[in-house]
């Protein structure tokens, strides 16, 4: 369904001819494989639909005009910036893609610890600006090369720093948003006084329709600017690094310590987390390097931090007795960064940290106490800049299991989940054999602790049909296991009800059928009503999960009967 010339010309009028294209060489690049999008659909030739045009707006007013134009011509649209996964891409043929790359400003109000960010202010940029002012920002697990705004308004947004800095939803202050019908809403103080410091109210918070546990994944219009809460940073205004990639050394991080904690049991792990939450000692806490897999993680870190070693050396490094012994010691582990805002603060936190370890019988990994390795971990977790490592083993991965956010539920199940994966690794060839347990993720999915944000990395070859198919089958298997344990949706299936395996949007009838068995149907019925109120032309895809209310269905049925 090609766009009319009139529509295309109108787009050109809004953003200028240089900032709109329907050239297939351009539009083809705005398609996404659906094999890594929390829907793990595959096979790899399945891609999201090709947009009719790609538009690069330069300001909020241009976005508003584009959205109004789309409503006039009933053309779908979706905005994205750093395009992490399928969530940012359109879901039907009669749509255009907004690429927000031209809107990239970030400003820091140091005194009030607030940053205002446009869509293409990526985590790294925001962090650099924040650090100049003794501040830092929560960088979501997606990494520092992704849009801060997208993590805050579009998706989940927790990461290593969330234990002390909260998650994206919690840090979100004022928001500027172009609604699906083209109206602009500015939340809280922004709407009334042009100030960014509070995004709630007046009265019941309108932001309730934009940001729940996830953001809207582009399904409620276009977020054009946000303010976020910043957090204290006790390090230098910038982090001087030296050495050769990828093994940089860091200078000036005297108030920051990085440790890997080795736990004797999963019970101790859960109890350790509880104490970390209560004692307020962690600046960052993430089970990071286990993403490579239990059997190979230490060897991988050894290679990544060695100037001459390559991945082909992996088998040899794994056989190194020291590496093997260290690896065995940290089967159950977590990386923690402790940061002192003063000398006394650091001293207290170190003592508290040691007291927790003593209480649960855990200890610090000797391997990770080596200065070079400690620097590597500090830089890795503080900046979260090494997302390429996620892809190192096989070119692609998908988050899997998810287990329970309650660490006391998830931890006792970890060995069973690991065994399930290990068995698959040994009996199939499509999923990388890394030792079963490849669980990783945030020690806290909520500010101050209380829930965890875990996933098992399923490493697969994103360019191999059999590998994708096999990893899909594995996730089907783990989903069965999850349901059997009463744990809900596997993370690899979170978005399975948002976009169909062919990359297209669901119909309302399909969504109605999917949600018919919800224990509390209001969960999907109210979003239907919200969509009808704010997105009457249904132009923004089906990540907004909706179910037709029974009274509307009955009316529709009666109307049909009447017609007959």
């Amino acid at each position: 369904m090609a766009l009319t010339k009139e529509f295309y010309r109108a787009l050109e009028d809004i953003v200028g001819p240089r900032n709109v294209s329907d050239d297939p060489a351009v539009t083809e690049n705005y398609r996404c494989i659906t094999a890594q999008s929390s829907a793990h659909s595959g096979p790899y030739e399945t891609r999201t639909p090709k947009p009719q045009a790609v538009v690069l707006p330069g300001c909020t007013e241009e976005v508003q005009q584009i959205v109004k134009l789309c409503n006039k011509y009933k053309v779908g649209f979706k905005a994205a910036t750093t395009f992490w996964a399928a969530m940012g891409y359109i879901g039907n043929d009669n749509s255009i893609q907004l690429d927000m790359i031209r809107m990239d400003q970030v400003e820091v109000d140091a005194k009030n610890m607030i940053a205002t960010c446009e869509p293409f202010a990526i985590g790294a940029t925001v962090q650099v600006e924040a650090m100049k002012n003794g501040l830092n920002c929560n960088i979501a697990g997606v990494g520092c090369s992704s849009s801060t705004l997208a993590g805050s308004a579009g998706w989940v947004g927790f990461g290593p720093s969330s234990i002390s800095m909260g998650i994206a939803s919690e840090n979100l202050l004022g928001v500027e948003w172009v609604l699906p019908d083209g109206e602009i809403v500015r939340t809280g103080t922004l709407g009334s006084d042009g100030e960014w410091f509070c995004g709630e109210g007046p009265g019941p918070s309108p932001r309730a329709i934009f940001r729940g546990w996830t953001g809207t994944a582009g399904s409620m219009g276009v977020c054009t600017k946000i303010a976020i809460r910043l957090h204290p940073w006790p390090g230098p205004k910038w982090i001087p690094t030296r050495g050769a990639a990828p093994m940089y050394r860091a200078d000036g991080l005297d108030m920051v310590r990085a440790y890997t904690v080795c736990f004797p049991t999963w019970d101790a792990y859960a109890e350790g987390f509880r104490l970390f939450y209560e004692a307020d000692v962690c600046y960052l806490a993430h089970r990071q390097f286990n993403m490579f897999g239990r059997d190979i993680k230490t060897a991988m870190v050894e290679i990544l931090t060695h100037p001459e070693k390559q991945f082909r050396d992996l088998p040899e490094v794994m056989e190194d007795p020291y590496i093997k012994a260290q690896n065995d010691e940290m089967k159950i582990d977590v990386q923690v960064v402790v940061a002192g805002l003063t000398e006394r603060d650091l001293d207290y936190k170190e003592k508290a940290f040691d007291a927790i370890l003593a209480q649960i019988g855990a200890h610090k990994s000797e391997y990770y106490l080596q200065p070079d390795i400690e620097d590597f971990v500090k830089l890795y977790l503080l900046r979260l800049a090494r997302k390429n490592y996620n892809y190192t083993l096989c070119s692609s991965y998908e988050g899997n299991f998810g287990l329970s956010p309650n660490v006391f539920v998830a931890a006792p199940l970890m060995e069973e989940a690991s065994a399930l994966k290990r068995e698959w690794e040994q009996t199939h060839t499509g999923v990388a054999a890394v030792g079963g347990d490849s669980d990783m993720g945030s020690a806290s999915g909520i500010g101050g602790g209380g829930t965890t944000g875990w996933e098992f990395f399923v490493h697969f070859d994103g360019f191999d049909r059999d590998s994708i198919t096999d990893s899909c089958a594995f996730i089907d298997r783990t989903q069965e296991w999850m349901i059997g344990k009463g744990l809900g949706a596997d993370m690899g299936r979170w978005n399975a009800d948002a976009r169909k395996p062919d990359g297209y949007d669901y119909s309302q009838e399909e969504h109605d059928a999917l949600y018919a068995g919800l224990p509390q149907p209001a969960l999907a019925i109210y979003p239907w009503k919200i969509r009808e109120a704010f997105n009457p032309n249904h132009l923004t895809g089906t990540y907004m999960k909706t179910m037709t209310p029974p009274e509307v269905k009955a009316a529709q049925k009666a109307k049909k009967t009447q017609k007959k």
Partner: protein
Amino acid sequence: MATKDSLVAMLGKANVIDDPKVLASYAESHSFDLHFAPWFVVKPKNAEQVEEIVKWANKTKTPLVPVSSTGVKLRGDSVPSVPEAVTVDLSGMKKILNVNRQQRMVVVEPGVTYDQLNAELAKKNMVIPGSLKPKKGQSVVTDVIEAVPRLNPMIQWNFFDPLRCVEVTWGDGTRMFTGEALAGPRDLKTQWSRQQWQVQYMGPWITDYYRLITQAQGSMGIVTWASLKAAVKPQVHQLYLAEADDLTELESFVYKAMWTRFPDEIFILNRAQAANIMGKDAGEIMQLKEVLPPWIVAVGVAGRELIPEVRFEARSKDLIDIAQTNGLDLKEGVANLSGRALYQEITKEDTGGTYWKDVYMGSHQNVFFLTQLEKTPVFLKAVREIAQDLGYPTEDIGVYIQPKHLGSSYHMEFTFPYDPNSAAAEARVLDLSEAVSVAAADLGGYFSRPYGKWAGIQLNKDAQSLMVLKKLQGIFDPNDVMNPGKLAV
């Protein structure tokens, strides 16, 4: 009388009240806004009855006004703004449904009060993060849902902490849980058996349902339980105080302290408000005003279960140093006010006699809004000027400034005591509070909790947010049965 019969059939005779004296007591409040006595007061015992009442109200188009606290009504939000309303009194729903030390979570019904909850939490060495000297009979759930500022903003990663999940019956009669609790069966016991403790408040999908009942004055639905995040009870604690002659002298210290996050509690009082808190009668308040410094910043430091003394000592020394660097002397007391005594007063419910802000003159009016710390002196100056113009004694104005949400915003509250037996005094304080409200709004004060006339002032500033709000009210309360007249422009 069909209405009464219907209510009695739902709730039993004893729980449907139409005694005029009792009805009149539900209309008493400190608010000057137009209000009415309710038609009936009903006292449901559980969520099922609440749901039934809301469905009945939709059928009969009867306005409902929820109230969960007992005692003096301070803001008028739980007093009907329209005639022939039914007040739904939830103060009898006083069950503490669950206390979980491992998760530091508690689930409570709306009638649970601070003293009741803290007595229960103390058995497990916990405490609920509180607001400044809550009135006797204050519902914890209402206090939290209405975003009354907490004394400890450092554990507010989210604006509405410690609120987590709720059970709500929306204005359309739909009853549901919110947050993680909405993803499971609508049965707490089943969720607990699965070790789901209503910790995670968001969503659980895109829509953040619980945010729709916050700051709503009961205009969206009725909450029948809420889960709240408790804190570990301090083993060692000191509320340190520092004095200043001028509010601006406190700014750099408070900003720096907020950056460190070392304080537990942190807030600012002027001498009048400190005297109001501590004074047992008008005479004592006057005496205190003679000796207290013009401004006091209070900073709490705690040590809890893990190496409490080490934490306490480190935090105390650091904060004292930071204060010194910023020209303040942070110590255990100022003048004859000890930090410990102040802490004791502000962390427990009021006595149940005359409300503490009324002790000095017999009654009071409050004006409060959100702003940023650096702007507070501008508001202070404006308020003093207005008071002077109207002949109100500026030395009687109480000021309380409370950081919220890790210091993202600051609650600024002005208290104007007055003699309710003097028509002239009452008229003057009415003029004063209205003029201050308008001036504060003009200066950028944000009435995030828009009670009474503030609704018109605030909502008229932003047509788009109002449009969103109206659409949401149309979805969740299509027949406008929930506390109509509130949040009105």
